[in-house]
């Protein structure tokens, strides 16, 4: 699909690893992937995964946080993570490695569409989430001599699982 390709291309530019995993192999393939990148402890905000072979700890101690992404933006490889349905703020924020689980069909073309979507789906109603975050790549800064440094207060690495 066009949008998936665009998303992957934008992700590549940000050094965000994208991997496609069929949904029936999510548990096994993701576990293997995480082992491969040296993850031993996790914090997981997803009903679809148990990741039972890993140590489950607090976000402040975990090597890796796994979050459910509600939808993605193709042009910028942005992940939209609302703090509802068990998603917690620190899962995608404290651990050095962040994993986002994104359904392939949940990708919108651009930022404007995403804002529109966010408003209509979640913000318009008075029962709105307390917080939603758009995540684009790992944390970064250019505050010292405008040198781009990746990995500041938020995660150093972001991986997106397209499933």
């Amino acid at each position, binding site marked *: 699909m066009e949008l998936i390709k665009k998303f992957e291309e934008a992700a590549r530019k940000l050094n965000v690893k994208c991997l496609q995993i069929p949904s029936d192999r999510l548990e096994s393939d993701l576990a293997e992937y995480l082992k491969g990148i040296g993850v031993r402890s996790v914090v997981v905000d997803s009903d679809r995964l148990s990741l039972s072979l890993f140590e489950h700890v607090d976000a402040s101690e975990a090597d890796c946080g796994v979050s459910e992404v509600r939808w993605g933006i193709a042009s910028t490889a942005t992940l939209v993570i609302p703090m509802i349905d068990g998603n917690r703020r620190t899962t995608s924020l404290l651990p050095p490695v962040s994993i986002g689980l994104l359904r392939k069909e949940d990708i919108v073309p651009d930022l404007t569409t995403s804002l529109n979507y966010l408003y209509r789906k979640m*913000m318009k109603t008075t029962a*709105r989430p307390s917080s939603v975050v758009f995540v684009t790549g790992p944390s*970064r*800064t250019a505050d010292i*001599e405008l*040198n781009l440094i990746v990995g*500041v*207060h938020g*995660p150093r690495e972001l991986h997106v699982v397209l499933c």
Partner: protein
Amino acid sequence: MKSFHKRVQEALEDKDLHGNLTTGTRQARQSRADAFEWMRSEGLDTEGMRDEAHRVKMEILDDLDVWVDRLEQSVVSNGGVVYRASTAESACEYVLQIAKDNDVDSVVKSKSMVTEEIDLNERLLEAGLDVVETDLGEYIIQLAGERPSHIVAPAIHKSLHDVADLYHEQFGTDRSMSAAQLTAWTRRRLRPKFLDADMGISGANFAIAETGTLVIVENEGNARLTTSVPRIHVAVTGIEKVIRSWDDLQALLPLLPASATGQQVTSYVSFLNGPRLSEETEGPEQFHLILLDNGRKEIHDDPDFREALACIRCGACLNACPVYSQIGGHAYGGVYQGPIGAVITPHMQGIKVAGELPFASSLCSACADACPVKIDIPTLLIRQRDRINRQDHSLVSFEKWAFRLWSWFAIRPVIYRRVARLVSLGIKWKFSSVQLERKSFLEEWNSLKNSKKQRVN
């Protein structure tokens, strides 16, 4: 505070500053240009976007009171508390009161120019609270005891060596640390501060009246941490940051990172609707929004300057400005620097202190070209100059007297011509080594006129 002239002189003599600024602003200009070029390649009408952004902002300003009221209602119905602070003093007092009422000992702060404006850190420190800036650039200048020198990149005036030396002085770290090492060191040092803080203070880039939503853009993750981990979140922002709806956000948000850092979108954009919901285990228990006036109403009510409140604090005008890139932010002597700083600082600090700023410009309009909301900064600068000149205590009294002297002669043409003749003879004598025309223009003209008369006759 040293005089503006002195500050400028010192800045111009600082070779290192010059190097850092030139490189920094050039890179920022290039990034912005690249970002806008990319948008156009995606089929976006960037000029149309700027026009739309301007229109949106001016419409909001037309009914500012209405939208601020609406914002307050929405935030309150989300479970937040709103405080309208008319002065810097009252804003600080309010924060101190919340801190006192809630046994707050330690505070983490994410980037907020408004909190610089009201000297909040100073007040909190005086009251015995532990306050730490968490944005890397702000942390650096907090360590150095300085003010930010740029709206977006507060430590742009410092080189890597400056920062490494600073860390060495403060913490005994190695002077040869790289930017990556300094950043990693800062991450480790500040992480426990986030986790232990009682209160997080942030700014806001936009405040949406319809839904009471605060929008915060950032790259480091410190604003997310500041607004998620501590049990109390206090957001401080100017009243002019209010927008009406998510349509307005669509018009404004895409222009902000592109203009500020050349990004299509920052690493994180947070949309905050107040305290945590009852089913949540994380997020602030209390949310306070302080809406600051501190002279903004005055600027708003002045039709000549209302446009200045359209500013979305992107810093593009600073990066474009040839004056800023020569003298840097500190020479402006205020919280806000560059072209927009030159417009609003005289309002905020008074013309006695800041009256020279609007004159320190060649009106080249690079700022107006860079501004995402198309604020006509050069016109605002001219209006400022006009205001300042009309005051009795003109700061440019030398100019005033020089013109008075000239006009005394100018309305007496015979005396003027005689004096001009003497002056030109004096110049020829003084600069006799330079090849000057033997006759002055007027002499040539007169002899030509006379010879014409003779021919006609």
